[in-house]
């Protein structure tokens, strides 16, 4: 482990016997409580799927399934078409990520370093959209997606209905711009003197320095698509094109409690596995690249 930077409580204070006892007590307590609070519900969910319809709503409940059975899981799997929903969701999230990395980075770079006329006005207009509740705009947005102005293309039931609106992400542009702002202007000048075009400067100077913020923006982009509910419900009505959230919601109407819980587990497991595999990257990305105070 790298040398610990000094934090609120000093290392010397912690090394004292009293500090040690206090530290380990609090540490143990926090680990126990956090495990309970964050893993407990998931444990309850996973085991709930193994219980019978009766047992899952039994009072008092059972800590372990009495007669573990996978009927609920098979039923949920059949009704949920998990593989399809999962593929769709990843596909949408991946596309949104690529488009955002291209267009949001380009826009933030232009706003931060190229500074065209009306740049601040454009930024202001973008930031303004953060104030508008998504539910409010959903009808005019839907109408737009159905018949794209000027080109008159219908995007319903196509991935573009998710991808293109995802680029209009003011928060990510804001994060990127703030980060780009902190890149010394001298570097830009040096590149310009060397005759590098803005694109080349972006590619070989700005982007390599921006890996952490790109990580953050990537996570936000993926998580946003992953979590969205109302919008995909509207624009992707074809069952074979739906996202996980919409699929699970469709399953949830009047179904046996154990099948529902099994379905929730099935929907959550891929996310959990994905997260555990990539947690190092996600975590260091989120912690390292965020806004500095």
């Amino acid at each position, binding site marked *: *482990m*790298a040398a610990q930077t000094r*934090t*609120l409580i*000093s290392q010397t204070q912690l090394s004292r016997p009293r500090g040690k006892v206090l*530290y380990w007590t609090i*540490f143990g307590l926090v*680990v126990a409580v956090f*495990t309970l609070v*964050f893993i407990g*519900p*998931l444990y*309850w969910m996973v085991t*709930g799927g193994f219980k019978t319809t009766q047992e*899952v709503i039994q009072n008092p409940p059972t800590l372990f399934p009495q007669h573990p059975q996978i009927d609920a899981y098979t039923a949920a799997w059949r009704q949920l078409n998990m593989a399809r929903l999962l593929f769709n969701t990843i596909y949408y999230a991946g596309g949104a990520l690529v488009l955002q990395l291209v267009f949001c980075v*380009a826009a933030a770079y*232009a706003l931060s*370093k*190229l*500074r*065209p006329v009306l740049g601040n006005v454009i930024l202001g207009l*973008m930031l303004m959209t953060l*104030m*508008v*509740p998504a*539910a*409010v705009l959903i*009808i*005019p947005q839907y109408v*737009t*997606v159905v018949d794209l*102005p000027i080109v008159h293309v219908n995007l319903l039931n196509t991935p573009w209905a998710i991808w293109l609106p995802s680029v*209009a992400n*003011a928060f990510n542009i804001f994060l990127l711009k703030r980060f780009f702002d*902190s*890149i*010394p202007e001298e570097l*830009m000048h040096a590149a310009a003197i060397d005759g590098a075009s*803005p694109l080349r400067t972006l590619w070989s100077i700005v982007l390599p320095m921006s890996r*952490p913020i790109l990580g953050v923006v990537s996570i936000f982009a993926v998580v946003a698509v*992953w979590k969205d509910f109302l919008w995909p419900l509207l624009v992707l009505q074809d069952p074979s094109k739906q996202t*996980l959230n919409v699929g*699970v*919601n469709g399953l*949830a109407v009047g179904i046996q409690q154990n099948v529902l*819980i099994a379905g*929730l587990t099935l*929907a*959550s497991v891929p*996310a959990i596995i994905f*997260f555990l595999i990539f*947690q190092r990257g996600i975590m*260091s990305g*989120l*912690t*390292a690249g*965020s*806004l*500095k*105070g």
Partner: protein
Amino acid sequence: MTDIIEVGPIVAAVPHQRPRRTRTGGLRRNVRAHGFLIGAVACFALFSWYPMIREFIMAFQRTKRGQTTWVGWTNLQHITADPAFWQAWRNTIMYTLLALLLGFAVPFFVAVLLNEFRHGQAYLRILVYLPVMLPQVASTLLFRYFYDPGYGLFNQILHFLSLPGSSWLASKDTALISVVLASTWMNMGGATLIYLAALQGIPGELYEAAELDGAGVFRRIWHVTIPQTRLILSVLLLLQIVATMQMFTEAFLLTGGSGPEGSTLTVVYLIYNYAFNFNNFGSAAALGVVMLVVLAGFSGVYLWLERRTKEA
């Protein structure tokens, strides 16, 4: 850990430096710059700005029998006459305050706590962030199951501890706080990690100096931690207020939107109800505009206060 330290100095080195730019090649430079912007601007124009303009227009229109007519302020009068209007605003403000208490303060203190741990930080961070990764519908429905007053997990735990059970979602007194609790569990991970990052950017010498001055733990938090993370705190606070005022999915799935005696009815759900259940887009748009004005006004005042305190 190491990469954080490597990255840190670069970020901190030249904060918000105003570039001194030569005014040459203005046109070409501008065209090129706008070329970089065009993709994002097109998407904003199509999916944010144009819908917003339409929204404003719709707020003054009413459609009947396929005929759209201009009705002026009628929609606005109707929504303010609706008894649900004030209730929705009361709930939304209440929800925002509760969500701030829990969704802002809790992640901050969790972050401060985690930052002190010399062990297991990675594990705890994973735990806190795990719920963020779950599909929102899945975790919300899971909480609905836990909140059942009969067989739900929460009442069973209370029962096990010989405490009286609660009605949770099934009472107007507890429904809103139940929604906030569920929402905090689901969403606190993101904020916690951002605070953690901010905390790790605080120079250790400041704590050192404060300690030498004889400041205790809480005074150190107050005089070092908070001022040092103030910018990020204030940005997140603003974003969080705006986001929580738009809360929709949680209440929609947990209480069906309105909740007992309308106790979880929020402005956004009211908008949804006008549009999708009453088929009254004029009123939905009018309420949307009201919300927009409130949020924009709030943000403006907030930013103004921010600037003033900074200058003072």
